[in-house]
Structures are given as C-alpha cells and as structure tokens.
C-alpha cells in the first residue's frame, strides 16, 4: 500500500525547509530461508531482500529526500550469523548503508537476530525512480519472521521531500 500526500501539485519553485510531499508505504511481507552474505558495513552490491520498493518522483531536483522506516526484524536460520545490515538504493544506485544492528542471542536456541531501521537523507533527482530498502544478514536469514515464529508485524516507510 502506498499513499502520496501533497499540498499542491503546482511547485514551480521549492520552498526552503518545507515539506513538499510525503509518500508512505506499509506491508506485512516476510522473507524466508534467504541465502545471505556481505560484510558488517552492509555494502553488498544490491543484494538483500527489498522490504520496500517504492516509486518516488520529486517535485524539485534541488530538494533533500529523507527516508525512514521502523526497525525491521531480521533473524538467522543457524547460529552462524554475526550482524544484520541494510542498504538504501535509488534504482540501482547505492545511497548508503543503514544503521546496522548488533546481534543478540536468543536464550532458548542461541539463534541471533537484529533490527535495521532506515534513517537516511540524500539529494533529490528528476523524474520517477524507485527507492529500495534492502536488509539481510551474513547467513541464511528471515525477515519479519523466523523459522518457527510466523507472527509477522507491519513494516512502515515514510519518504519526505524537503524544499531547498
């Protein structure tokens, strides 16, 4: 589900510091048994599971785009993972790694999990492009569920365009 909120579609010039538009998206998607790799900095050349892939058309090419999500749950299949990571892409261009989560042991099984939340800003562009929020782990992993725990929640994305 994607929602676009705009005050007006007539933006001849961006307004300094004002929110020009907001796009939100939410889903309950789960990824299971995904083969993961990568390093602790999250730079994995596009790999990972796209929890969000949302088209976004800035109203001005001079704006700043802010992307935020709730913390997204990533869980390992076997007790070999050391970290979770997230990457933000605009089309195929890597815009940076999200804050990576530390792992925590689950006392009953020793399996690790982490949470990745996106909180990124970047320069605007012209035309429609797709923003991808990808997450993963350096082992076989699950997103928004685990091997034996299937009660997923809703993940939410907010994209804001701020006038220059």
């Amino acid at each position, binding site marked *: 589900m994607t929602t676009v909120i705009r005050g007006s579609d007539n933006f001849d010039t961006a307004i300094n510091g004002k929110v020009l538009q907001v796009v939100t998206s939410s889903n*309950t*998607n*789960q990824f*299971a*048994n*995904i083969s993961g790799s990568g390093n602790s900095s999250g730079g994995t050349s596009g790999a990972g599971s796209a929890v969000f892939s949302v088209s976004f058309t800035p109203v001005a090419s001079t704006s700043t785009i802010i992307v935020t999500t709730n913390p997204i749950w990533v869980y390992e*299949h076997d007790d070999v993972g050391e970290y979770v990571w997230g990457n933000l892409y605009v089309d195929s261009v890597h815009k940076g790694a999200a804050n990576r989560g530390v792992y925590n042991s689950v006392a009953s099984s020793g399996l690790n999990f982490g949470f990745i939340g996106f909180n990124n800003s970047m320069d605007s562009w012209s035309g429609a492009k797709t923003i991808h929020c990808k997450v993963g782990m350096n082992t076989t992993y699950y997103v928004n*569920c685990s091997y*034996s725990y*299937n009660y997923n929640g809703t993940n939410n994305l907010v994209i804001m365009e701020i006038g220059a």
Partner: protein
Amino acid sequence: MEISKTEAIVSLMPNSPFMWRNGTLEWLDTVQPQPTDSEIDTEVTRLQAAYDAQAYARSRKAKYDLLNQDEMRYDDLINSTTTWQDAIAAIKQEYPK
C-alpha cells in the same frame, strides 16, 4: 506451539528461498519447484504431530528442572532414603509417554 507454513516449507525445501507477500506465498527459488498447498499442509500436520508427541518430554523436563537432583541424591545416600527416585517416578507417572 503451532507449526507454521514457513517451518513446513523449509522442512520440505531446506535450500529454497521464498517470501510471503502480504500473506501470499511467492517462490524465489529459480531451480527447485514450489511445493503444492497439499504438500505444505501435509507437512504442517506431520510436524505438528511430531511436536505434540513430545509434549510429555517437555512437561517432564520442566518438572525435572525444578528439582535439586544432586542434593536429593546426596541426601538419599546419607540418609538411606529414596526421595530422588520417588520424585522422578512421580513426574514420570504424571506425564506418561
């Protein structure tokens, strides 16, 4: 514990990635075929039965863990009593196979 379809699919196809897109199964494996709904449901039933069959063992272990068994065995040895054996037997009787 209720066995999930995710667990059943991984049991059937341990090397196959997949996802649930807002509740609908989407197969991400380009080599191995997707199991049918019937196969998944059958596996859920099988795994659930296997899990349920071990209920007695989980119940016994929870009770065993409440006992200070080393001390009970030591005291029995010193006092020529059978408190440890009696306690274990009572738990086994409470949760039969």
